[in-house]
């Protein structure tokens, strides 16, 4: 039964093909039936395979489907170990829940069946990515998730913004993929194989410089896919796609591919100090910038998009700190509560008839109690309030960074890591603040708009919400300081990896209290401003805070002007350069030389064509001339004349 785990990979592909072929025949009901059942079946098989695998003491299973060449070793193979097992369960499970939600959300959409074709295709590509046993298959999956993400972002391609957002995501991802591809080439050149296991085994024999180079190129790929600074601006735009697709692709699974990949190559990463510092600093920068930007957004989905980027930054921080288990743990918990938040936002958008501006919402709690409650759970979970899921994982990340600081031999590095820790804590506080604001603006704050027509979302939407809400509460218990469940699962994968462990005893408790404090503080500030409306009750004018607050608001809603900076610096610069290239290199040099050659041929042929009179007797004269030439040759060359 070893091959069982590859069935869930190809089941979505078959479903996608089947639905595509029958897209004109099937109505919505039949399409829903097939796609839901296939998703459920694939989850069931995954679950069964995972349980079998767990009973076998998490011994990794590998399957080679096809071997192309032996040296260099290029094969198509899949593997089931702790890491891919967790991802397998996560992807198939969430895919089922979100497809259940989609059946209602995409109801009566023109391209209903297309949506499910793309969706299933995405699930297939994501599973290809996570289940691969070598870099090449992973790259296939990597590119295919990019493609399906593009298809789903610009799903409503009649909207110019959606089409543009799809292009943007694709182009920015391409920058990352370029780095990934170069990394793969160096890997093949160095190790002569793509296989994860072999590469990781032999990575100890390779010089640190090579490791650093490979890791940095792969990291560029991870930055592109996981929307890290500076390649993050595509993710907020990607919210143009259908909300359930955003929930699965741009929150729960695809964007975590970078994190997954980095954990996959962790045996290699740990050898390079440079890469660790690069990862942690970029992760931190991303977490802070995105959290800051989320503070003043009014689009219900954009807040969540920036929040996703920020949480991905947390995962990168965990990887940089060497806490690979914590990264995967946060990936799992984040997948649940972010999917919950996205689906909740989808339910709100659906009930508000595709209104996404939070300023036109407010006071929806009474109209949509279930959605409000579930989104409240999601908000608490992401803010890190115990005992919800987010607390356990975020606290583990913070504690790991702190522990890493204690492990440093030099004081400078120690101070640096303590600084990282405090900034991460600040990002956590900001997270609680903007998520509290998000919830309050939608469900609590009274904007004086009449919402009496708004109704609770249909059952097909609330049920997945409730399911995810339950998971958001309890999923955190898979890896608490008292029960290292996930760590055991990942044990085989991270066999030779030095994982940063949590501090023991009283230090852990203190750290936990600090992180809970940060979460509560953020929520309380949010409540004071948006719920209690503090600024209206006390006279702010004597503090002269008007202009700093406006500045912060302006910077936040414009994402620190990073996009404008990018546009001015890269896009228009690139445009100018390419225009010049088009005129000078293409127009003058290439076209010029081609035109010159052709006109030279034209001129010379016009001259020589004068000899081609078409008159036979002229040709006879030419014949005579060459006869003379030939005879002279015979007479005057020494060879013949002797």
């Amino acid at each position, binding site marked *: 039964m070893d091959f069982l785990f590859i069935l869930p990979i190809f089941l979505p592909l078959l479903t996608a093909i089947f639905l595509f072929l029958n897209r004109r025949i099937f109505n919505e009901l039949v399409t829903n039936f097939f796609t839901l059942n296939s998703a459920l079946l694939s989850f069931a098989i995954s679950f069964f395979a995972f349980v079998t695998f767990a009973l076998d003491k998490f011994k990794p299973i590998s399957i080679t489907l096809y071997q192309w060449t032996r040296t260099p070793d290029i094969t198509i193979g899949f593997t089931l170990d702790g890491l891919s097992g967790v991802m397998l369960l996560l992807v198939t499970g969430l895919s089922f829940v979100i497809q259940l939600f989609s059946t209602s959300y995409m109801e009566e959409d023109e391209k209903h069946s297309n949506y499910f074709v793309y969706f299933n295709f995405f699930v297939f590509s994501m599973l290809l990515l996570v289940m691969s046993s070598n870099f090449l298959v992973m790259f296939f999956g990597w590119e295919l998730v990019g493609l399906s993400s593009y298809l789903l972002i610009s799903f409503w391609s009649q909207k110019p913004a959606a089409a543009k957002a799809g292009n943007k995501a694709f182009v920015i991802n391409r920058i990352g993929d370029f780095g990934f591809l170069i990394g793969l080439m160096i890997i093949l050149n160095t190790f002569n194989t793509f296989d994860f296991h072999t590469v990781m085994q032999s990575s100890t024999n390779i010089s640190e410089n090579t490791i650093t180079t490979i890791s940095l190129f792969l990291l560029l790929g991870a930055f592109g896919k996981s929307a890290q600074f500076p390649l993050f601006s595509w993710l907020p735009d990607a919210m143009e796609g259908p909300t359930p697709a955003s929930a699965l692709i741009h929150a729960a699974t695809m964007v975590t591919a970078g994190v997954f990949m980095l954990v996959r190559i962790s045996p290699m990463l740990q050898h390079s100090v440079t890469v660790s510092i690069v990862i942690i600093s970029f992760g931190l920068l991303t977490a802070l910038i995105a959290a800051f930007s989320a503070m003043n957004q009014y689009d219900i989905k954009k807040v969540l998009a920036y929040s996703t980027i920020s949480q991905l930054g947390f995962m990168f921080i965990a990887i940089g700190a060497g806490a690979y288990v914590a990264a995967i743990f946060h990936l799992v918990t984040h997948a649940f509560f972010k999917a919950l938040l996205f689906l909740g936002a989808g339910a709100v958008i659906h009930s508000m008839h595709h209104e996404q501006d939070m300023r036109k919402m407010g006071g929806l709690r009474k109209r949509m109690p279930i959605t409000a409650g579930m989104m409240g759970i999601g908000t608490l979970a992401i803010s890190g309030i115990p005992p919800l899921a987010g607390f356990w994982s975020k606290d583990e990340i913070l504690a790991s960074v702190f522990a890493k600081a204690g492990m440093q031999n030099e004081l400078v590095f120690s101070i640096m890591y303590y600084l990282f820790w405090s900034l991460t804590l600040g990002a956590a506080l900001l997270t609680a603040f903007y998520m509290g604001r998000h919830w309050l603006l939608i469900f609590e704050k009274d904007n004086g708009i009449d919402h009496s027509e708004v109704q609770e979302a249909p059952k097909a939407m609330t049920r997945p919400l409730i399911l995810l809400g339950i998971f958001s509460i309890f999923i955190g218990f898979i890896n608490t300081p008292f029960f290292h469940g996930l760590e055991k699962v990942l044990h085989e994968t991270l066999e030779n990896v030095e994982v940063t462990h949590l501090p023991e005893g009283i230090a852990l408790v203190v750290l936990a209290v600090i992180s809970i404090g940060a979460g509560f503080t953020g929520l309380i500030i949010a409540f004071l401003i948006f719920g209690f409306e503090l600024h209206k009750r006390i006279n702010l004018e004597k503090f002269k805070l008007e202009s700093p607050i406006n500045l912060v608001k302006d910077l936040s809603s414009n994402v620190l002007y990073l996009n404008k900076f990018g546009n001015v610096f890269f896009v228009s610069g690139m445009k100018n350069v390419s225009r010049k290239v088009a005129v000078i290199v293409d127009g003058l040099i290439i076209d010029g030389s081609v035109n010159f050659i052709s006109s030279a041929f034209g001129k010379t042929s016009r001259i020589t064509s004068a000899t081609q009179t078409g008159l036979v007797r002229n040709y006879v*004269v030419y014949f*005579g001339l060459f006869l*003379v030439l030939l005879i002279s040759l015979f007479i005057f060359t020494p060879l013949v004349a002797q």
Partner: protein
Amino acid sequence: MFELLIFFLPASLLIIGALIVVFAKNPVHNAMGLVMTLVSLAIIYITLNATFVAMVQMLVYAGAVMTLFLFVIMMIGVDKKEQTSDSIKGQTFLVSGVFLILMSLLAYVAVNSEFSWNLWFPAVEYVVEGTPQLIAGTLFTTWIFPFEIISILLIVATAAAIALAYDSKIRNKDA
């Protein structure tokens, strides 16, 4: 003496015939000059012991090819006068120039070798008789491939001649 006679008589006939071909105004006379040339060439072949080639020369050239020529002359008529002045600009100049250079080259060669040919290889003592047996024996063994190819060429030429001479307009009128 007889040897010289048997060479010079056909040789002079041959040159006279060739000149008639070039200079006669009436196409029929040209054709007769060509016949004369070909027949005297056949005689020269016999003096060169190539009897079978001489026979074939008589049959194919002086017989078949010449009949073809005369047939065409009959078709296009003999009364058309060729215009005497040259219609192509500079042709006379070119022709005389080329011919003069060619002749002076030949004269140079003749004077340079003091009117004696140096063939480098001496003539063999024995005589090869060009009998049909000998020719066939070599033609159908050593030269069998060129022979087959040349037969393909003949078929193609025949087909081409039919295609070229076929007048579709006339045929359509009849039908």
